């Protein structure tokens, strides 16, 4: 997993609430046995015409946003299916952070395990940010994980929450499984202490 410290980038605005993971990556693309290469299919049904050509009015197809690493989405982003293919696809496309007013629980967990930062901000700041991006679509903004702070294009600062464990892990690019494996002795002790019919 790549470490995440701070990021300055253009942002792509997708002002839709309740974006479910079936939209982020439709189920027909889940037949892969790999994590890589899903970026092509990110938002496939919103992004491409039936003939496979890009829809000109979909923000991800706008050349002004090429190289953008931040996605600004509506409320409750990533709801529905638990598919981790959703953050894999977002990362493979080039995103490193998603900003919303709320993230679905499983999606948030999946993001944090892959180095994709879910940035939850209050509705007022979110609406201000959307206004800014509408006025100056290619203005860069900054996300600083150490300070848990975002700087809007107009310079205004806002903070976002993240649990200390996930934050430190992301800052170091440290995998969660390594940490979990260090509990082997406690896991074995827990198993031994369970009632026999439960072991």
């Amino acid at each position, binding site marked *: 997993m790549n470490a995440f410290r701070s990021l300055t980038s253009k942002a792509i605005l997708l002002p839709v609430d309740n974006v479910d993971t079936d939209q982020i990556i439709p189920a027909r693309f889940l037949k*892969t046995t790999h994590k890589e290469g899903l970026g092509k299919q990110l938002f496939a049904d919103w992004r491409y015409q039936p003939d496979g050509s890009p829809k000109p009015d979909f923000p991800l197809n706008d050349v002004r946003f090429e190289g953008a690493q931040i996605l600004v989405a509506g409320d409750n982003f990533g709801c529905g299916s*638990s598919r981790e293919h959703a953050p894999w696809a977002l990362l493979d496309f080039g995103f490193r952070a998603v900003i919303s007013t709320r993230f679905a629980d499983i999606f948030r967990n999946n993001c944090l395990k892959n180095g994709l930062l879910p940035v939850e901000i209050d509705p007022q700041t979110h609406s201000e940010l959307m206004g800014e991006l509408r006025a100056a679509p290619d203005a860069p903004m900054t996300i600083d994980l150490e300070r848990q702070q975002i700087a809007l294009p107009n310079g205004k600062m806002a903070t976002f929450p993240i649990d200390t464990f996930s934050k430190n892990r992301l800052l170091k690019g440290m995998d969660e499984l390594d940490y979990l494996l260090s509990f082997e002795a406690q896991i074995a002790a827990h*198993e031994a202490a369970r009632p026999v019919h439960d072991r």
Partner: protein
Amino acid sequence: MNRPQTLFEKIWQRHIVAQEAGFPTVLYIDLHLIHEVTSPQAFAGLRARGLRVRRPDKTVAVADHSTPTLDKDLRLVDDLAAQQIRQLEKNCQDFGVRLYNLDSQQRGIVHVIGPELGLTQPGMTIVCGDSHTATHGAFGALAFGVGTSEVEHVLATQCLLQHKPKTCEVRIEGQLARGVTAKDVILALIAQIGVSGGTGYVFEYSGSTVRALDMEGRMTLCNMSIEAGARAGMIAPDDTTFEYLAGRLYAPQGEEWERALADWRTLPSDEAASYDQHVALDVSHLEPMITYGTNPGMGVPVTGSVPDPQQITDPNARAALIKSLNYMGLQPGQPLLGQPIDVVFIGSCTNGRISDLRAAAQALKGRKVAPGVRVLVTPGSESVRRQAEAEGLDRIFKEAGAEWRWSGCSMCIAMNGDQLQPGQYAVSTSNRNFEGRQGKGGRTFLASPLTAAAAAVTGCIADARRLLV
């Protein structure tokens, strides 16, 4: 005397392996269910690190998402799907994991076979790389969906790192009217609290309605907890639970059963236990429900009409509704009754169990599927399929003109070739009406098996209560 605890807290407490301030809890997992779609990258991770599956005896695998339903021949699905199923077979063989393969008499949708086989038991922690894992909460288990990284964590350590979720009591009171089912209750709840109403919470369903539901109805209720955003849904175990479990293949037997039973009876929430949140729902006047939009919260009584965006003040909600109605091709204010449909899907982990098929058969018996309508009946498991055939339900479906299939997720997720064509309308007993969920461009109305059967015979959205005599 100990502090009063909820069902959730009791189970959580029992499964804490380690807990340090500022760190997530290391939580022990009793049962890990895996399937072909969300596990391959997890097994690849184990191989890359040279790890084994720590507890193959607590791990159970089945292929269900992209399996064929016309027959069990893998040539019926595309190469990628077949390859993914073969990969699951290889992974289970290499790591010593029990697999219910395509030839198994006990295979089926993962959330249907867990309870059927008695693998799902009260007090357990159960996870699966699938958001509908909440289904198992109907037995008083803490069951939730996880991503593939977490599948790898559980395979390697039998544990997960978890932050303790908040609890919400969902109290449901009232006697359900004839023709109104658990599916209608959960659709009504999600319509009331919205698709993010439960985010951050574990639901505990309580109240007279829940107590009166049989296990299959309770599973339907818990199954769709995730559609309200909840991490899990659970129901305190009672005699209904124990009667269902008694004698099941993997349920405790003999003296062990007695010991387990004594333990399970201590699980229900203590009377004085407190929750972080409360939701109340009165279902005594509830009608059959149906969705009109592109998320499961967009539901109304079947006799209702499509909402008008002009009457919604919140600009985001208005925009979302306009986008939905545009996709669905529906007009504001239009009644749902009489809306023509092309396909009916009866099945899924939400409504693919025997009582669901009985309800659908009751409405289809002696009737014919409307001309031009395609009806797919996909049992939730092979065991459900055999039971339905023993009861003659398959004949009722076939004589009415419906297709009778092998078990699997089928058109709920449209990965196996069972899918809608662009623009087609379906009444579906599944759990998600997201854009393209049942096939690219397909348009889904979620409803109960009864309402789905009524749509099958009339060719449009209909009130099933009129078909019940």
